[in-house]
Structures are given as structure tokens and as C-alpha cells.
């Protein structure tokens, strides 16, 4: 492939600059420089900070210890927060996968309203998260919001519900907003997956007069395995790391009933000024994300040859 370059002998100064390794180095300097200076270096410092007890910028004691991580285990709030984070992720991802697959099917079919359907799917995705959060906060407003207005008019409830101020309902409300915002992405990935299904495979299934449900299960879904796993991975990572909508809609309240790991770490850092503890929590989030990715990578590579 690089036959032209392989034939060149790297002798002399001019030829030296043509060696692939050096060229690659030059081309990668900006990227690597940015990542090293603004990501790797701070991460290392943050990790060290999590091994100390930094108060107001200075470590209170010399040396490193795992006391912050130990504190995570005895933190009375952490059980609730960890559960919230996992619950949030599982519910949002499952719902998004199901609804997103249905959406992908709808988008796949060409009709006179396809353009409107595509545009409708793009709107939540293009809406900035902050806007979606404030929008849904208003929709869930107990006194003036459209949800209570609608439910009251339909006589499904008899008194206004304080969606964002009631434990249990608060997290649910944020889940609704997140599913609204994130399902289109899954639908687009599923659509792309469906467009990769060879036409003759679809035709063959149709001709075989297999019922639509059988067609779905045996023909279409295997092809959707990769896009669905990719979507599940992306959305699971996003769920574990969720911050903006919780921060804006509920601030983790009431009483941590909707608090999640990222928001808790943020509060520890900027409200309680426990910098080391916040750092430790955030690294645990990172580890959880890594585990997720490993699991999904394993799922993706297993039985990969089965489709063709």
C-alpha cells in the first residue's frame, strides 16, 4: 500500500523527513499535545487528589491513602445515589432501545409523511439538553404545567402532582425527559442498520410467506444486533454519567431521591468543597464506565461471524 514510501531509503536529511514514523509524529503532535496537556495531566492530578484529603486547595496530611475510597463505602447517601444511577440508566436505555427500534422501523418506510417524520425525530436530538430540561420542567410544573393540566382534564388524577418535588416521581420525570431527547439517536442508528440489510434477504423472507413477526425475529433483528449494541453502549455510558438534566430539573432532590453519581460528585466539590472525595467519586464513575465498555465490547465480538 505504501509501496512508494517503502521503496525510499531513509538516507540523508531530506529523506529523513519522509519516514512514516516521523511524519506521523508531526501530524499527531497537535492532537497528542492537546490530550496530554488538558486531559492526561489533569486526570493524573485528579487521581492523586483522590488519594489525599484536599481542603481549600491544600492537602491536610502528607502521603497518599485510599481513605476517600473507603469513605465511599460508608457514605450513607451513596447507596441511594448508586441505585438511582443504575436505575436511571437501565430504565432509560431499555425504553430508548425499544422505542428507538420501533422508530427506526417507521423511519425506514418511505411514505408521503416521511419528511415530517424525519424532521420530528431530529427535533428532540437537536434541542440542547439545557433547553429540554427547562422545557420539561415547565411541562411538569405542578401548578401551571401541561401534564397536570392534561391529566386533570382527563380526570386521570384529582389533584395536581408535584412531579419534580416528590420522591419517586422526580427521577421518573427526568427519565421521561431523557427518553424523549435520546430515543431519536437510537432510531437513527437502527435505521442505518436496517439500510444495511441486503435487499434480497428481505425479499426472500417476504416470498417465503413467513409471518411478519417471524420475519422480524429471524431476519431483521440479527442485522440490528450491532447497531442496537452500539446504541445501548452509548446510552448506558450517557446514563451513568448523566448530569445536566438532573442538575437543572431536580438538583438531585428531594432528599437525594433523584440524585445521581455525577451530580453528587459535583455537589461534593463545589458545594461542600470536599475536593478529594469528589475526585474519588468521579473516578469510580470512570471505572464503572470502563466496565460497561468492556462488557459491551465482549458482547459485540462474541458470535460476530454468525450473521453472514
Amino acid at each position, binding site marked *: 500500500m*505504501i509501496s512508494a514510501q517503502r521503496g525510499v531509503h531513509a538516507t540523508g536529511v531530506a529523506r529523513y523527513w519522509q519516514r*512514516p*514514523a516521523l511524519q*506521523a*509524529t508531526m*501530524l499527531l503532535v*497537535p*492532537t497528542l499535545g*492537546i*490530550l496530554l496537556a*488538558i*486531559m492526561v495531566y*489533569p*486526570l493524573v*492530578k*485528579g487521581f492523586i*487528589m483522590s488519594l489525599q484529603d484536599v481542603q481549600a*486547595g491544600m492537602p491536610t496530611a502528607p502521603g497518599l491513602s485510599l481513605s476517600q475510597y473507603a469513605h465511599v463505602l460508608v457514605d450513607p447517601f451513596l447507596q441511594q445515589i448508586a441505585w438511582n444511577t443504575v436505575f436511571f440508566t437501565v430504565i432509560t436505555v431499555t425504553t430508548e432501545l425499544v422505542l428507538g427500534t420501533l422508530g427506526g422501523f*417507521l423511519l425506514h418506510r418511505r411514505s408521503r*409523511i416521511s419528511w415530517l417524520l424525519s424532521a*420530528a*425525530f*431530529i*427535533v*428532540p*436530538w*437537536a*434541542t440542547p*439538553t*439545557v*433547553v429540554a*430540561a*427547562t*422545557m420539561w*420542567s*415547565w*411541562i411538569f410544573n405542578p*401548578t401551571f404545567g*401541561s401534564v397536570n*393540566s392534561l391529566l386533570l382534564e382527563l380526570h386521570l388524577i384529582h389533584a*395536581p402532582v408535584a412531579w419534580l418535588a416528590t420522591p419517586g416521581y422526580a427521577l421518573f420525570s427526568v427519565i421521561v425527559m431523557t427518553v*424523549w431527547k435520546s430515543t431519536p439517536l437510537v432510531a*437513527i*442508528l437502527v435505521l*442505518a442498520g436496517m439500510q*444495511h440489510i441486503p435487499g434480497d434477504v428481505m425479499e426472500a423472507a417476504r416470498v417465503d410467506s413467513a409471518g*411478519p413477526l417471524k420475519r422480524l425475529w429471524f431476519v431483521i433483528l440479527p442485522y440490528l444486533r450491532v*447497531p442496537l449494541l452500539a446504541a445501548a453502549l452509548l446510552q448506558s455510558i450517557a446514563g451513568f454519567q448523566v*448530569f445536566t438534566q438532573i*442538575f*437543572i430539573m431536580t438538583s438531585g432532590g428531594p432528599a437525594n431521591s433523584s440524585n445521581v*453519581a455525577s451530580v453528587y460528585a*459535583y455537589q461534593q*466539590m463545589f458545594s461542600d468543597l470536599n*475536593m478529594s472525595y469528589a*475526585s474519588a467519586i*468521579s473516578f469510580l*464513575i*470512570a471505572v464503572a*464506565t470502563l466496565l460497561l465498555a468492556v462488557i459491551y465490547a465482549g458482547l459485540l465480538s462474541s458470535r460476530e461471524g454468525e450473521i453472514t
Partner: protein
Amino acid sequence: MIGEKTAGSLLYYAGAIVSIVLLLSPVYWELNSSLQSTSSLLTAHPAWVPTHLYWGNYTALFGTNGANTGFGYGLFNSTLVGLITTAITLAVALLAAYSFARLRFRLRRTLLYSIVATQMVPGIVLVIPLFVLFQTVHLLGSRVGLVLAYLTFTVPFAVWILVGFVASIPVQVDEAARIDGCSVLGVIRHVTLPLAVPALIGTGILTFLTVWDEFLFAVTFQQTLQEKTLPVVLAGFIGKFEVQYGPLAAGGILAIVPPLVLALVFQRYVTRGLTAGAIVG
């Protein structure tokens, strides 16, 4: 067979209509709210369609009521930071993508996977030490610092997408240019760049949308009103405009317009970019 087709059509149209309603109605409600005065919104059953269009919310955003809402700053800063971040990202990522797609060197695979893997680093784990670091180098609250912070995740993402595209350009085109005496940078500039324009557009738009949307870094780093980006300004409305949901809705609508227009106009580029990374290798 006829029965199945009609049932299929019915299901499709039913599903499509339900989807359109569910997906669009919150934004419609936001638009509806933005065009009514806050006083008319503060009822248990606000009107579904404004009786007459009220533009006061939109003008209030830009300070005609005498109060500086910061919305103008938010718009300006988000646009500026977005454009600069996108420009730097595309330039840096294209160079890196070329090196991964075309050159053979020892750490190639390791470096590529490492760079792509950094996307999984949660923002929260970076924001804490970055805050301390920026404080030290006096970058806290500056837009330069914000751009630098954003580059940590926009660049790996762009590299991920662009590597695939550069690799798909036939090598013969590169080699023809090299035989004509082009240096590596020359090849990138005259051959790769023009051919990668669709990919660059898609990646550029996705980058801009990501920056426009970003909240965690912005709310942590930006301190003064003059330097806040739009998401931070809008989030701040909840304290400022505690009961004034009219201007908040108006701000929301205006904040939706740029990304929505970009996404709709460049739909094809955007979906291709999104799926390229997730599905193709």
C-alpha cells in the same frame, strides 16, 4: 396478503402520527408559551394556541426591559466558542486521521485506540482537576480555557470519524500526487481535504452541536456574565426569572433554532457521520 398490507399501513400511519405528536409537542408547547405573556401562562390550563402573538418575551431577552439578561452574551459566546472549537478540531483531527489512515508506524494501533477511548472519560472526572488547573493558570472563566477543555472530547470524536473516511479514499490518488512531487502536507491539502469535505461538514456540524449543547464544563468554568455560554445563561434564568416562564421559553426557542436548522439542512451529512463511527469498524 392484502389484509397484511393494509394492517401494515394502518400500523405505520398510526405509529407515525403518534410519534410526530410525542416528539414535537413539547417544543410546540415551548413555542406556544414563548408567544404568550407570563401572566397569561400562570394559570392551571394555559391556552393551547396563543390568542394573539405576544413578542414581549423575545424583546425582554435582549434587555429592552432595562435588565441585562445576559442572553445576548450567551448567544455570542456559544457561537464564538462553537466556531473556534470546530475549526481547530477539524484541522487537528484531519491531520491525525491522515496519519492513522495512511502511514504505518509502530504505535499506530495503540495510539488510535487510546485516542478513541478517551471519549469514554466522564466529564465529571475531568472537570474537577481542570477547575483547579485553570484556576492556577488564570484560564478560569476565559473562553480560551473553555475551547481547550472542549477539544479534549471533540478532537477524539472527529479523529474517530475522519479516519474511516480518509481510509476510504483510494491510495492511488495520494500516490499520484506524491509522484508529482507533493509533500505529505501538500497531499493532505490538495487531495485529502477536498475529497473529505462531506465528512468534514458532517463532523463539523456534530462538533458545533456538541459545543452548543455542552453544560457541565461551561457552568463550572465560566464565572462572569460576559463570558457565559448560552446553556449557562438559560439555566440561570430559573433563578433570575423565577416565575417568568415566558422569556425562559423564548430563550429556549431561540436556543433551539441554530442547531435545529443545521441538523435539518445537513441531515444527510449528520446521519452519515453519526453512524459511521458507531457501525463501520
